């Protein structure tokens, strides 16, 4: 999603179509907001397709009912729902971040690099930092790299011992970061020269 988000905004500058978008509209925030919404909706549709695929595979391959208790004494339905909610919340974080980064760095490859680093190393770095500086955990647990745990923690509350945030806190953290990224990204978008 970080690659799609950044390409989706950057292509307007590469193809010069941003010029028409900007001069035909007075409110720049509408353009930024519309683009964010479309990418998030795209992510939503992808998640829906993945869910549908999961349901089909499960009905074909796993015959246990949705209400059957599995991991952590939770039903399959609860786990699936928790996963979907976690992914949708984290996609908000990652899409707003990608929009802000492309406005800041202006190079797609760099934004994709940051995205890959976040995906593969983010959680590990965050955990390592909190292990190294235990006294700073009350602050470090709010670091943006820690937010990725929302994708797992909603279905597996034991991750709270790793992220040091409860489910409500990690959801709030993701949403607050998304708001910060939107504000910073829009500010950069407004200032960017055409």
């Amino acid at each position, binding site marked *: 999603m970080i690659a799609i988000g950044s390409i989706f905004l950057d292509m307007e500058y590469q193809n010069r179509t941003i010029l028409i978008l900007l*001069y035909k509209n007075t409110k720049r925030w509408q353009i930024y907001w519309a683009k964010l919404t479309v990418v998030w909706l795209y992510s939503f549709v992808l998640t829906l397709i993945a869910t549908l695929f999961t349901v089909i595979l499960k009905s074909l391959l796993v015959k246990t009912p949705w209400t059957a208790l599995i991991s952590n004494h939770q039903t399959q339905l609860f786990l699936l729902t928790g996963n979907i909610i976690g992914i949708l919340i984290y996609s908000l974080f990652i899409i707003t971040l990608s929009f802000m980064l492309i406005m800041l760095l202006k190079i797609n490859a760099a934004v994709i690099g940051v995205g890959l680093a976040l995906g593969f190393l983010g959680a590990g770095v965050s955990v390592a930092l909190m292990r190294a500086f235990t006294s700073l955990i009350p602050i470090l647990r709010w670091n943006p790299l820690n937010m990725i745990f929302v994708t797992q923690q909603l279905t597996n509350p034991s991750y709270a011992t790793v992220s040091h945030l409860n489910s409500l806190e990690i959801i709030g953290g993701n949403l607050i970061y998304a708001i910060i990224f939107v504000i910073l990204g829009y500010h950069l978008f407004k200032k960017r020269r055409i």
Partner: protein
Amino acid sequence: MLVVQNVNTYIGQKRIITDASFKINPGNIIGLIGPNGAGKTTLMKTILGLTKFNGQILLNQTTVTENQHAALDKVGTLIEHPAIYPFLTGQQNLELYAHDPDDCQSLISKLNMNTYIHDKAKGYSLGMKQKLGIAIALLNKPQLVILDEPMNGLDVEATIIVRRLIHQYAAKGTAFLISSHILSELQKVMNQVILINHGHIIINQPIAEFEQLHHQVYKLHTNNSQLTVDLLKNHHIHYTLDGGIFQVNPKNIFEIQDILSSQHVYLKELTPISSSFEQIVVQLLNQQRGGDHYDD
């Protein structure tokens, strides 16, 4: 229709356009001329409310600012490069902005784009993209069209078609502001010229008046070139010198004759010669760059 009044444009802290003022009436075709970096594109972007500026821009009595673009609804533009989504066909690109499918189809036909309009734009040549960009600018019967180097990449046939289209639209009241480095081409369409250099508008005249005022220079040949140079310099008279032949401004010829005769320098030749549009522009730019200096 468009009034630009005392406009100063800034990029960062740097002033790019200084105190620009001009008017465009319906049907006018204004040629915006100037060297690279003179501020032509910046001026066009300023009119479109895309830069930070002070002063006043009014389009049909409605103010245009960086945050007020309502008046620009009836403005079409092609600035720097055609604004095209490469993954869409030419037709789809036009449909994104078109209010009337008939208008869209008519432009496709007039610009001879029928054969490739349903192909994806990423496969288009430079000229095909340019024509599509011009079609987008001319969509929806605009009142004002701003074109930056519209003839870029166009072949002879397409250039003639675009020129004809500009005349047709102007006859119906559409005003044009066109910048181009191909002065001969611009000369064929414009009826008013704005010459800009270092962000200052130095000439803003109807083309007929411009040619009348600047079209002629005089060729001067004397029996003592060196003394002539000294005398012209001493009297701050602008000239160009090439192989012992001077070119001087018609307004100075009587003064020059008086000065030369008082120093017993005699004329071998003093004849009017016509300058091409390009030569006039270069001469005006040289004069503006040099102020009271001289070009040998």
